[in-house]
């Protein structure tokens, strides 16, 4: 007689793990442990333990489907080795042809958000209207209230869960510290002084 496919060797969490698989394969956005627990009608602690089992089964090199912790939740994605095949069939509209202006704007919103278009323009030195509209349309940023409570304040923007998903981030806290990526203010000040001295010399 056929026995059900044993994805996970007999384990008390077997049944729960299969339920989580089902939930994750249906979802089109990452599911949090709380959401999974609510849907599976089980304890969050047990869900986390069962997720461990599912993750082990669905990992790179073991399966074409990979379970990843992304954008604050859990989601299935394709394995990296299947990327070429996927690319033949599927488009990536959110991240295709992101311009330098869009990426800089995205960086500003990701690090300093929620922030308004004037905030972005101040830093980049050019108006941010088209870049912001473009990123909103792609679903990478979204509106997040206004500068001040009154209606007249500029609209503020923040990055969306899709942004974290596209960039493969568990959360925004996974972004590298700004001090680590950029030249410090001191270095730039030194350069300015250098130029000034050369001119007066």
């Amino acid at each position: 007689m056929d026995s059900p496919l044993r994805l996970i060797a007999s384990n008390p969490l077997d049944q729960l793990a299969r339920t989580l698989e089902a939930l994750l394969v249906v979802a089109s956005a990452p599911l949090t442990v709380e959401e999974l627990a609510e849907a599976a009608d089980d304890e969050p602690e047990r869900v986390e333990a069962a997720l461990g089992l599912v993750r082990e089964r669905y990992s790179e090199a073991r399966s074409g489907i990979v379970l990843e912790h992304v954008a604050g939740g859990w989601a299935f994605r394709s394995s990296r080795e299947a990327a070429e095949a996927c690319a033949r069939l599927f488009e990536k509209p959110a991240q295709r042809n992101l311009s330098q202006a869009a990426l800089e704007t995205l960086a500003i919103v990701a690090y300093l958000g929620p922030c308004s278009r004037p905030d972005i323009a101040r830093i980049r030195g050019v108006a941010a209207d088209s870049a912001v509209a473009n990123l909103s349309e792609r679903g990478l940023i979204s509106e997040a209230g206004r500068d001040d409570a009154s209606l007249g304040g500029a609209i503020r923007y923040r990055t969306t869960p899709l942004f974290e998903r596209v960039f493969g981030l568990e959360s925004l806290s996974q972004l590298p510290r700004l001090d680590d990526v950029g030249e410090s203010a001191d270095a730039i000040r030194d350069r300015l002084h250098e130029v000034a001295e050369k001119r007066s010399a």
Partner: protein
Amino acid sequence: MIVRELELDLDAFAGPFDLLLTLVLKDELDLRELDVAGIVVAFIERLAERDELDLEACGEFLVLISALLELKARGLFPEEAAELADLEPEAAAEELARRLAEYRRMKDAAAWLRERLESEGDRFFRLGPAPLAPKLETPLAPQEPERLAEVIRLLAKEPPQVSLAHMALRFPPVSQFLERFRSLLRRRSRFDFDQEVGELTRVEQAVAFLALLDMRRVGEITIDQAAPFAPIRISGTDVEREASWTVRSA
């Protein structure tokens, strides 16, 4: 080399430099959208194509581009222009350095994002509107059983009988109008329908019209109407007149 004829191909604008200046001065092109560095690059490329250094062109270009830059800077920091002007040169340099550093950090962050995008480019995942089932909610305020019972009792009460008396229609017999129209046609060869039935109720008018149709069917009359909603003209046919004549002579 003529600076004004410098051909530009920027995101916000493509065409000769002097057209760009005209558009900017007429406020038809937002300077904030313009990549001034792109203009400089275009100029330098053009300059590099020539062996000699055209000092006159360089001078003219410098004047124009610095004016553009100043306009753009003023446009970007309208409320801060005054604030910055009040600063001591030393403090202004500090502020400038701070802003440059901020921009540089964001540029580097953008570079990190691009690298990340490339390294994560081989991850495909399902996308779509979140198809989550709506959460079961109980939006009702706490209810008092007494009041609920009261309302239900109200619903259980038999509703009052609605009188239809005013809706009764009285249809006069068609024959009444047949006779009336026939006698009319004996006196006159034609008459105006609207005029004849104008005084009557709508129901009576409808029955009168039925009578007309009946007469038309047997060829007693012809009906004319010049245009929709125009007066309806009725005239007796020869057959009818002949018949009446026969009756009279008999």
